[in-house]
């Protein structure tokens, strides 16, 4: 796509994705009344908040950086062979890097707002970044190894030519992706940076238009994580359920899975999240890489390359 169509497509996708994720979470909220809503908590867009003694540079930049990071990540998610903002050679790696900007935005906004709750949210968000980034990388590496490429379009094509959705070959990797996706999106059970105990953390310090930007960014974040999961593990826009509609349905499925899977676990504190990441998720991830390597040597999913 050219620059202008890609820009329009990314904006449309961010808005549409945010609306979809928001609607799904609102709908599923009724089935999980006692789960901490985290970033999906209702935001008062009508109220203007102006905390005293903010760091003006950080406080105003934070929501924009969050939305920017999510929009940049949506550029590489393909909804069709040509329906992608830009098919980067290093698409999957770029996706991993760019979504870290959301954690940066929460840290900046939390510190900039200079209220005790917001600064607490800043610390928790940085700790959660440290917790999710290594297991997420290990989960994503499985499909990258099987598809032998970093480009998102090429990963979908590889699954299509091999006639195999990678979730079938790597169920452990998929489960790991769902878990770290919940960590990355601050959804249950990893909602500590946005817990109701600290009144929503960063969200409590913002009102008006900036609160709307936060809401769009956080909902679109969940949509992006689900879309990437569909691309990596469920065959994206290819396969029996294909095209943009199929991709949308798969994204919806992964979204619902991430939200519903959280209801079975109580909310984890930040220290517990870090311990879980270090003691459980990283070893499972390494095991997954070993498993996938063995499967590749046995020829699973490699009919695309014969």
């Amino acid at each position, binding site marked *: 796509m050219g620059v202008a169509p890609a820009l329009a497509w990314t904006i449309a996708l961010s808005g549409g994705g945010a609306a979809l994720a928001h609607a799904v979470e609102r709908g599923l909220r009724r089935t999980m009344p006692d789960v901490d809503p985290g970033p999906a908590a209702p935001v008062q867009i009508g109220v203007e908040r102006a905390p005293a*003694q903010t*760091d003006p*540079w950080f406080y105003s930049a934070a929501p924009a950086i969050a939305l920017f990071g999510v929009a940049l990540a949506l550029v590489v998610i393909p909804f069709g062979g040509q329906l992608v903002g830009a098919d980067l*050679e*290093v698409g999957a*790696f*770029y996706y*991993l890097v760019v979504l870290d900007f959301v954690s*940066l935005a929460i840290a900046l906004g939390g*510190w900039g707002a200079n209220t005790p709750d917001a600064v607490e949210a800043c610390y928790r968000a940085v700790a959660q970044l440290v917790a999710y980034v290594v297991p997420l990388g290990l989960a994503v590496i499985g499909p990258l190894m099987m598809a032998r490429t970093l480009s998102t379009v090429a990963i979908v094509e590889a699954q299509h030519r091999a006639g195999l959705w990678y979730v079938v070959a790597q169920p452990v990797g998929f489960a790991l992706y769902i878990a770290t996706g919940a960590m990355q999106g601050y959804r249950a059970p990893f909602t500590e940076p946005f817990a109701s105990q600290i009144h929503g953390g960063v969200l409590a310090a913002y009102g008006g238009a900036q609160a709307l930007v936060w809401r769009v960014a956080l909902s679109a974040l969940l949509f992006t994580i689900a879309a990437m999961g569909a691309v990596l593990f469920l065959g994206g826009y290819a396969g029996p359920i294909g095209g943009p509609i199929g991709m949308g349905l798969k994204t919806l499925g992964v979204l619902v899975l991430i939200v519903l899977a959280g209801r079975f676990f109580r909310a984890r504190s930040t220290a517990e999240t870090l311990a879980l990441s270090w003691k459980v998720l990283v070893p499972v991830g390494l095991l997954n890489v070993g498993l996938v390597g063995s499967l590749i040597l046995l020829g699973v999913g490699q009919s695309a390359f014969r």
Partner: protein
Amino acid sequence: MEIAPALQIVLFAVFAAISVLGALGMATTMSMFRSGVFLMASFFGVAALFLLLLADLLSLLQVMMYLGGMLVMILFMVLFSSDPGGSMMAGMMTMTRVEKAFSRGLSRPSPMATPHGAGGGMDMAAGHDMSMTTPARKWARHFGWAVAVVLSGALVLRPVARATERALPDPRSPERIGDLLMGKYMIAFEGAGLLILLGIFGAVLLARPSERPDPEDRGHLRAAVDAPPPPPEEG
């Protein structure tokens, strides 16, 4: 991706300015948090320069490593310094023009709100020198200027004559780097892995709770960490 030459020069100027101003801001601002963020911005500027130099994997690697690394470094600074937000120092120190530019917005004349973190730090003894820089700063500034002028002058007056530009590099950089890492530089790769492992061991070992008794005021912090999290509030 072909970029027009005029656009290349503009992009280079913008990102070079971000890199240099970011590093300058890191060295001169009164707020330690801002210092960390300025350093992050400088690294992102250099990553953009890497993109202009057609090293895409390397630029992404740079962003990923330093985003996470700087955030954690900032967290450490906040834990161990007495005025991480800089508003106390910005309020009471006489700053040079550069420092004032990078510390704008930090100090407010409001008497009620407490500045970031100040007063909670450990070494707030009366009469303590709160400056961010050592006494060597006076000649360090001249030293820095001297190095910058000498190096830039040498580069401008005697340009690198042999810099004839060859063909464009291979765009499939992940494949090429992967081949090299697994082939020619396997020892370096494994050595780096071993070094990382030793670094992890060392850091965890050094930061273990020690036999020394914790300071008195850390008792309640330790108890708060060990206690189970309270249940979420209703409503």
